[in-house]
């Protein structure tokens, strides 16, 4: 296919990854998946609350989607590794989103622990997609550690504040030879489109869809925005030429 996103041996046609938290009803999930075209869907692993019977979310993720468990709740690399191994043993496949957070106020990831977890899990054959605070040297270390993609945050989780880290993400896109997937903070389709225009490989959206007035319609809107942004990127955004035609040429001396 012409413009597939290749991660972990898979060719993805959709560049919108969908998170499944905060939906008012799980039955919305397959509808949102369908309307948005998402092919990668994240889930979390939690202790069962025996007083309150929940449904198994995995049952709502349509067959054919890649189920990507996250390691949310992990505060250290060791905990993230444990969650990832459990999820895989429970039949979740090889994909895992590393998320290590020790900051309960802003929910910003711990890059150091994230690198450690990535290194261990990549060596065990996981397709590792680490969620991180955008930082060039961390991204390089994640790449060296064997990450399949790097997922910088646009702004804090669930904040819907958009691409506040735009400049840092731009640097990652320029410098890191892995897919850069903007995760967290994207609040509107226009922000998803902007990330894609910049050259992001994909975006992961959860809160903005799950908490919209009509999540299914919003899922569709995000799917279209991601496609439009990607198409614009591929079309080659016209450069802004920031130099005037020089009055004194620099190469005039060349005669041969």
């Amino acid at each position, binding site marked *: 296919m012409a413009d597939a996103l290749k991660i972990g041996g898979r060719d993805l046609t959709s560049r919108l990854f969908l998170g*499944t938290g905060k939906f008012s009803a799980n039955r919305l999930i397959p509808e949102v998946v369908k309307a948005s075209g998402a092919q990668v869907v994240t*889930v979390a692993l939690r202790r069962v609350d025996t007083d309150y019977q929940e449904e198994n979310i995995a049952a709502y993720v349509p067959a054919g989607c890649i189920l990507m468990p996250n390691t949310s709740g992990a505060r250290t690399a060791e905990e993230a590794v444990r969650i990832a191994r459990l999820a895989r043993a429970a039949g979740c496949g090889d994909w895992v989103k590393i998320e290590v957070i020790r900051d309960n106020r802003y929910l910003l990831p711990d890059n150091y622990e994230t690198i450690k977890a990535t290194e261990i899990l990549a060596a065990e054959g996981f397709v590792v997609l680490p969620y991180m605070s955008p930082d060039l040297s961390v991204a390089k270390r994640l790449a060296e550690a064997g990450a399949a993609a790097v997922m910088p945050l646009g702004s804090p989780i669930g904040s819907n504040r958009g691409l506040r880290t735009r400049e840092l993400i731009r640097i990652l896109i320029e410098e890191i030879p892995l897919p850069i997937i903007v995760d967290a903070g994207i609040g509107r389709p226009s922000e998803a489109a902007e990330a894609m225009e910049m050259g992001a490989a994909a975006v992961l959206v959860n809160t903005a869809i799950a908490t919209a007035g009509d999540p299914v319609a919003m899922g569709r809107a995000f799917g279209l925005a991601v496609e439009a942004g990607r198409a614009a990127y591929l079309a080659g955004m016209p450069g802004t030429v920031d130099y005037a035609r020089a009055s004194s040429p620099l190469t005039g001396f060349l005669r041969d």
Partner: protein
Amino acid sequence: MKIIINGKEEAVAENATLEEIVASRGLNPGGIIVELNYALVKRESWPDTILRENDRVEILRFVGGG
């Protein structure tokens, strides 16, 4: 004897199996994952897994997450 289930100390019958613990809590075995002392125990091994004093049992499931 007492064991620890999801971080809480609970009293259970001597020689209780994992299968019995799960059933006694009314959980649907299809949607959950059980870990004993930090190691996953496969569904088919639950009836044969006999618990000992101070064992740590974690019962987990997939939930929505981003």
